[in-house]
């Protein structure tokens, strides 16, 4: 379970960042007063265009960033006060595989297993399970740099799931992947849901959201524009397509 309550995040901009963003403001408001809840056994999607604040929100949930205001609880634990405890319970996966190129799949899983404080035997049995599930046996001892994108994605998934997390956070997990490779992620999300895990993923592709999620929040310029179940979204929509409705909501807010 993830509970995000009135969370805001501002970053102080340095001179270089001000120049890059072409602004004279001292602070950038990445997320403004955001609230939502993700339930176990359900898939929650954070939908929004690029730069909407999706990644910042997910980074706050995964304890990389601290909220400027508000609070986030994951499995009943506070992300600021109990960050290390929370980290044991979450798995974090991004579109960029986030793997060490010069290590082998085996070495990476051993390393992360140890970082998650698993015992050697626990690591071995988890690895065996994941290798079988993801069909990874043939390349477990090859260096990541020599693997194909699909293989890397599998290693990345195994790395995320090595400690069997209760909560899985995906930050645009399919961005830059072809349909075949994306399929691995989609399968993973579905299986996490079946296992009763809490799943949150961010995306800017409506069709992907439609395919997987039970609940959804639309975010733009750091603000939540819609939050509710997918069924609710469908019943309230004014456009004929889901993507059309997503664009309408974003544009309507921007115009106001």
């Amino acid at each position, binding site marked *: 379970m993830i509970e995000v309550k009135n969370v805001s995040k501002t970053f102080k901009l340095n001179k270089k960042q001000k120049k890059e963003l072409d602004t004279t403001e001292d602070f950038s408001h990445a997320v403004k007063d955001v609230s939502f809840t993700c339930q176990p056994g359900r898939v929650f999607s954070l939908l929004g265009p690029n730069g909407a604040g999706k990644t910042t929100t997910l980074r706050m949930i995964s304890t*990389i960033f601290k909220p400027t205001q508000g609070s986030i609880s994951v499995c009943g634990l506070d992300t600021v006060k109990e960050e290390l405890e929370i980290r*044991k319970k979450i798995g974090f996966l991004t579109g960029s595989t986030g793997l060490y190129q010069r290590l082998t799949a085996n070495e990476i899983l051993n390393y992360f297993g140890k970082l998650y404080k698993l015992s050697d035997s626990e690591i071995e049995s988890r690895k065996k399970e994941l290798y079988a599930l993801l069909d990874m046996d043939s390349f477990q001892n090859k260096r990541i740099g020599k693997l194909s994108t699909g293989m890397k994605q599998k290693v990345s998934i195994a790395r995320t799931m090595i400690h069997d997390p209760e909560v899985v956070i995906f930050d645009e997990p399919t961005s830059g992947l072809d349909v075949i490779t994306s399929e691995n992620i989609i399968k993973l999300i579905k299986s996490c849901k079946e296992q009763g895990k809490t799943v949150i993923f961010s995306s800017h592709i409506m069709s992907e959201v439609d395919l997987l999620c039970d609940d959804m929040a639309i975010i733009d310029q750091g603000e939540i524009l819609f939050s509710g179940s997918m069924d609710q979204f469908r019943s309230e929509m004014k456009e004929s397509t889901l993507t059309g409705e997503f664009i309408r909501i974003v544009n309507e807010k921007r115009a106001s």
Partner: protein
Amino acid sequence: MIFNIFKKELIDTLRDKRTLMAMVIIPLLVFPLIMTVFTSISKSYTKDLAEKTLKVGVIEGVENNELLMFMDTLQMSGKVELFYYADTNELKTQIKEDKLHFGMYFPADFNSKLKGNSTGEVKIFHNSTKLGYKEQLKLILELKTKSIEENRLAALKVTPENIEPIKLDFQDVASDKEKIGKIAGGILPYFFIIFCFIGCMYPSIDLFTGEKERGTIETILTVPVTRVQLLIGKMGVVVCSGLLAATLSLLGLFITLQFGTVIEDPKLMEVITGILSAKFILTLYLLLIPLTIFFAGIMIPIAVYAKSFKEAQSIITPLNMIVILPAMVGFFPGIELNLTTSFIPVVNIVLSTKEIIAGTTNYGYLGIVFISSVLLAAIAIFISHKQYSKETNVVI
């Protein structure tokens, strides 16, 4: 946990060809290469010069010239070859064009002055950019001037002692070790410090900026370890790389001295082996460890701040100059370890090492050097930690 992080980062670092090159290959080969090339070039140059025939141009019309006659006899041995010219301009041109090594011009009164127990002056044209030739000619002509001198003294019934009323006999109390320490002592710490710095450079960029560039930073920050643990694990690898590079450069030096033909004098070799004692090496490391931590502590905040390998490299590389200049202080005579210099980072390590090599260590100053280095290292760790904990720096 820190050990696990350290182990992983070490494996990762050792598999990076770029780091391996800066950390292992270059430090190990630099001394053998420099010393072998340098000594073989200088040896062959000296040998060449000794075997070379000196081409000397002389203005025609000089008769009964004792010095010239002496040189004429030397033509047989191949040491000198004489050429005759009509005027000095042509002589000078030939020297400039490298066809002659020297040109000799004897004034008209040369012979009479020489015979009249006076000083006969001879003008010698030469090209000072051709090193070593002047000395070679002096050596040859001295044979003749000495014999004329002896003849004149004998004719006057004067012994050499008569004209040398006092002989200054300087007795050096400095040991060979001290002499080597003061002269060459600056070179060793210089290379040591430079390699420490270079050894730290690539791993610090690779392990900090590299995580950003390769997109691994987010995953590593979501594991249940604190940033301090991550920082220390990574810093450990950076420090070890610096020390490894320095150690390998020492090993390279040792191998060159032991198995090379750089130093042929067994007495000198004995002194050098004596310098590289276990005590010296231990003290050196005691000083180098905090210095390397300090280096790592300077580089890590930069590597954490930089967004790409290139950016980090472009900031850290100029820093190299800031380290090289104080490291060169050991080459200059007169700068000694004192209350002021023992507080200046890098300079204090160079001067201490110099003192240790020379065996003239002042343990009070050495203590200051060690404590001030440790303090600096602690400050550097603190700054690195501050920078590594900044949200905006860690994630792009």
